[in-house]
């Protein structure tokens, strides 16, 4: 497709709303940086400042996507394309469709709440909140960028604040965890870059525009190679087995608000990129490797759940449960039909809310008890009944209780796999059987954690701690209420992305389903 045609087409946004969404937090970070140092005099200035910017950014997102984004229109909307560095073909190219919109809104909400959850942070507040603002910009850019290089820059840019947030404000082994995080993701980025450039360079024309890449066709070997590169690269973020081991360390050491961002935003980037690159740009390779994705997915589900059950640290346990839940995203993407992809999308949204809620509540009681070790706890419910209610509610949501968003997303994934006629019945039956075992394991590790932390006789030493305050209540409710609303009326979320996921699924059906046995040497 001619790039100029797109540039002049009517879909070009009249006002660069998306750029504003992306740049507003960065602007905040810049202003914050030049503000005079007065941490002693006015310690809350940078916090309030960051909160204002994040809140206005979030409201802006709601307004822009609420008023200007049309759910039922296919393809990209609110497109902006400006040449940035023409010599290397880099463009400032933004656009939103059904799979980016809900994730942008989700990440805006989570970052805002994470900033609010950092209320009591005392050390180096200015740097902390500036990093949060940079992170907010980078993540929005990841979801909205329509140019490969721009996407890649954003992907790398977002690593820096997260690395620093873990390395400076983390727990005892924060350096180890932060280094591990940066090593994993940086090495993975290399694969992303190589694969992306290989695709951009292949064929007659050079293009970095994702839309144009989607319309390009690649030869089998190259697309398979790039697919695997992307899979490993994005798989680290998702994370997929066996690339997940950075996650429990990162969560174990990061403070609660950073964990909220890790679980609520960073993991979603992996899933988003898999959909955007592996599925949309390389549909043929995706059709070939979909069964392998499903296998990895069920390994994730079971392996993550078993690991979670053995963890003795609250945050590490929730981190492993994320590994398990992200398995459903892989399962949905591997199901290559509209149900499966829709389920994967909803699972990302739902897990973003639920995991953030769990990490937030964990932070609430960690601030009061200063321990995360499950064997050292017990009887918290007696002193913190409302905290208990929130933790229990998010645990129940996490174990896919109907009426909460996790149920409908996992159910949709299950239905997607069930109704995929391209797989043999035996394959589908085994997949669903094993994945459903995950549904039995989830309550075992989550409810036993609830039991050991909250149930039981009261511990006298904890008698004086205070219950959640109104600020914490608001944060908790902002995460739990959307979970319930989506659980009761899933179409609120589904309507946002349904057109896009249907289009992706439709496009996949145009490609033949090639047996793995023809691809793999040992088949």
């Amino acid at each position: 497709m001619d790039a100029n045609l797109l540039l002049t087409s009517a879909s070009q946004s009249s006002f660069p709303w998306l750029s504003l969404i992306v740049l507003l937090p960065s602007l905040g970070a810049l202003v914050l940086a030049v503000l005079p140092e007065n941490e002693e005099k006015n310690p809350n200035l940078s916090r309030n400042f960051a909160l204002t910017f994040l809140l206005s950014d979030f409201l802006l997102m709601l307004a822009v996507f609420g008023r200007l984004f049309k759910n039922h229109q296919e393809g990209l909307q609110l497109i902006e394309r400006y040449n940035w560095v023409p010599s290397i073909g880099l463009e400032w190219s933004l656009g939103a469709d059904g799979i980016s919109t809900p994730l942008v809104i989700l990440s805006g909400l989570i970052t805002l709440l994470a900033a609010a959850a950092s209320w009591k942070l005392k050390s180096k507040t200015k740097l902390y909140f500036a990093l949060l603002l940079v992170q907010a910009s980078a993540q929005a850019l990841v979801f909205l960028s329509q140019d490969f290089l721009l996407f890649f820059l954003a992907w790398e840019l977002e690593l820096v604040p997260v690395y620093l947030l873990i390395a400076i404000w983390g727990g005892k082994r924060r350096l180890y965890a932060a280094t591990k995080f940066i090593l994993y993701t940086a090495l993975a980025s290399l694969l992303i870059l190589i694969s992306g450039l290989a695709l951009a360079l292949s064929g007659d024309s050079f293009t970095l525009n994702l839309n144009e890449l989607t319309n390009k066709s690649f030869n089998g070997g190259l697309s398979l190679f790039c697919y695997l590169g992307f899979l490993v690269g994005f798989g680290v973020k998702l994370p997929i087995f066996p690339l997940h081991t950075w996650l429990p360390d990162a969560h174990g050491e990061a403070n609660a608000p950073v964990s909220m961002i890790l679980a609520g935003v960073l993991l979603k980037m992996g899933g988003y990129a898999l959909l955007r690159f592996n599925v949309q740009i390389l549909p043929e390779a995706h059709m070939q490797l979909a069964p392998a994705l499903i296998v990895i997915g069920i390994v994730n589900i079971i392996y993550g759940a078993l690991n979670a059950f053995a963890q003795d640290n609250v945050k590490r346990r929730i981190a492993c449960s994320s590994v398990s839940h992200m398995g459903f995203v892989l399962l949905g993407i591997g199901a290559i039909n509209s149900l499966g992809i829709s389920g994967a999308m909803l699972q990302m949204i739902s897990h973003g809310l639920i995991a953030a809620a769990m990490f937030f509540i964990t932070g609430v009681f960690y601030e009061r008890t200063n321990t995360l070790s499950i064997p050292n706890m017990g009887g918290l419910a007696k002193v913190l009944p409302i905290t208990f209610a929130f933790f229990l509610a998010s645990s129940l949501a996490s174990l896919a209780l109907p009426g909460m968003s996790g149920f409908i997303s996992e159910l949709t994934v299950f239905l997607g796999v069930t109704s995929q006629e391209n797989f043999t019945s035996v394959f589908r039956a085994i997949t669903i059987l094993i994945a459903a075992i995950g549904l039995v394991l989830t309550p075992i590790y989550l409810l036993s954690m609830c039991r050991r932390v909250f149930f039981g006789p009261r511990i006298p030493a904890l008698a004086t701690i205070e219950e959640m305050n109104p600020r914490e209540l608001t944060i908790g409710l902002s995460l739990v209420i959307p979970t319930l609303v989506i659980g009761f009326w899933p179409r609120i979320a589904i309507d946002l992305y349904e057109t896009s996921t249907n289009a992706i699924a439709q496009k996949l059906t145009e490609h033949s389903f090639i047996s793995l046995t023809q691809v793999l040497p040992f088949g």
Partner: protein
Amino acid sequence: MHSAAELAWLIPLFPLLGAVVVGLGLISFNRRINQVRKPVAISLVSCIGISAIFSYAVLWEQLRGVPPVEHLFVWASAGNFTIPMGYVVDPLGAVMLALVTTIALLVMIYSHGYMAHDKGYVRFFTYLALFSSSMLGLIVSPNLLEIYVFWELVGMCSYLLVGFWYDRDGAAHAAQKAFVVNRVGDFGLLLGILGLFWATGSFDFNGIALGLSEAVDIGAVPGWAALTLCLLVFMGPMAKSAQFPLHVWLPDAMEGPTPISALIHAATMVAAGVFLVARLEPLYSHFPVVGLVIAVVGTITCFLGASIALTQMDLKKGLAYSTVSQLGYMMLAMGCGAPVAGMFHLVTHAFFKAMMFLGSGSVIHAMEAVVGHEPILAQDMRLMGGLRKKMPITAITFFVGCIAISGVPPLAGFWSKDEILGQAFNTYPILWLVGLLTAGLTAFYMFRLYFLTFEGSFRGNDENLQKQLLADAGKEIEDEEHHSAGTLHESPWSMTSPLIVLAVPSVLIGLLGVPWNSKFSFLLNPVEAIEAAEKFHFGEFLTLAGASVAISFTGIIIAVMAYGLNRIDLKKLFAERFPSINSFLSNKWYLDDINEKIFVKGSRRLAREVLEVDAKVVDGVVNLTGLLTLGSGEGLKYFETGRAQFYALVVFAGVIALVALFGVLGPT
């Protein structure tokens, strides 16, 4: 003018609204809501009351023969696939609606007295409203998927209510066990639903039944697969209705407050499994083997529950095993292809068992005044006795319950149980024999409960016995809480009046189902009812009924001799002569031990080993630190044992095998 059935969707909605409003209030303005506990409770009770009025209107319409109503809407969609939700009102649902709202209302009134001094009073009422809403939603569900939704929600409410006193370790364990065991059942149910969807493309009860039988007929779905799917779906009812071997959660669930045991764990939620099997009757009727499996499972459960109930010393646990046993009878009826008989027993049992549980609550309430709030003391019958004189209303209503469940004509239990036994006699005579034997056991253990609790002399002030009981349970003796200050007294009116109200149907409701003119089966299945009435022979009825009445009286007489008149010493006669059988029964067939050893410990060990693999192998390999640790002494030591290599080998061989397997099997 709308008909009541058109408005049936409001029935679950009223309590839900109440629960949501109060729940949000509890979270946001906890102290203020707790200050106005009474108005809050009254408004929640009114929510159920309104639902009850609607339910009776619906039932009245169904009795007048108004055709069933069904409404659907699209809940979720993807591509051209939609998930329909909605509501359906038919005679079966109408009966259940009326039953659940009635008992929920009575239990709420009772709870006002029972929970009066509890700090969680408002929370308790909120949970009750939430539960009622979910249960009512389950009843009006028009398809399997919606049933699954509410199925899990009632399970959640059960979890919350069993763990209501969250500072008790026992409650915490019991709640978790209840949820997990039910999830095991739901695992089967979900697989079954998905499988049936795969086979028929439908979630609708009739759609599934028609689709599956057609698919089997044309060979699209092999017979064994259809059978497997039916049995997988049955796993759900097995867990929810406490059928062997998934019954293990129900006795433990007695850790919850007693009104909950009456409402959820005797009358309504545990009956949901039976209800679902009744809903699935069109499907199961195509597969006689499934019927046989259900009947056998029901019979085993029925006998198991009764046999364990023989030795229980805890009043509530005794009643719980009795519930397990009675649920077995209902399943037996379902397996015999007689859902009407099973549903009839469900209804009668709901009334008299709820009454007895509430009665036991009244007893415990009184005992707590004497022995303190430790359930090990307050619920143990060795400390009771002679309560009839102090609390006559409780004693009389409990006695009514005993004769009703024992099958003494013309009380409710006689008609419904006899109907089931009659059906079993015609279908599977061997199962009938077991059922008949169990009827004798039932009569015996119920009267044992009655005599130990209400007759004889009061033993609650025996300090030595109290200490011994606490020591047996491994609890420490707390002196300060141990002042037996209070005296026994009858419970307040809010607790006794529901007992009296429930006693009326316990006596009379059976008359709606007399076999020669069963109004109940005429409502649920008019064709079958007319047929049954035509085929009815007094001779056959009297023989079978005579047999079951005779065996009931045998049980009652033995109980009277042993516990009422102390003429025979069962301990010498039986327990000491057959110690192995006695310990087999008092250890609940060792099922809890097996469960603990294999599943609980096994899963823990597996998880620990996986974590070790994760930390030492997966992490190591990906980090490439495996090479580094090789250099250091420790790494060498670890590798020398060969465990790391072994684990690594297993993991990677496993993954490669899976990939290869799916590569071959996967794409068509």
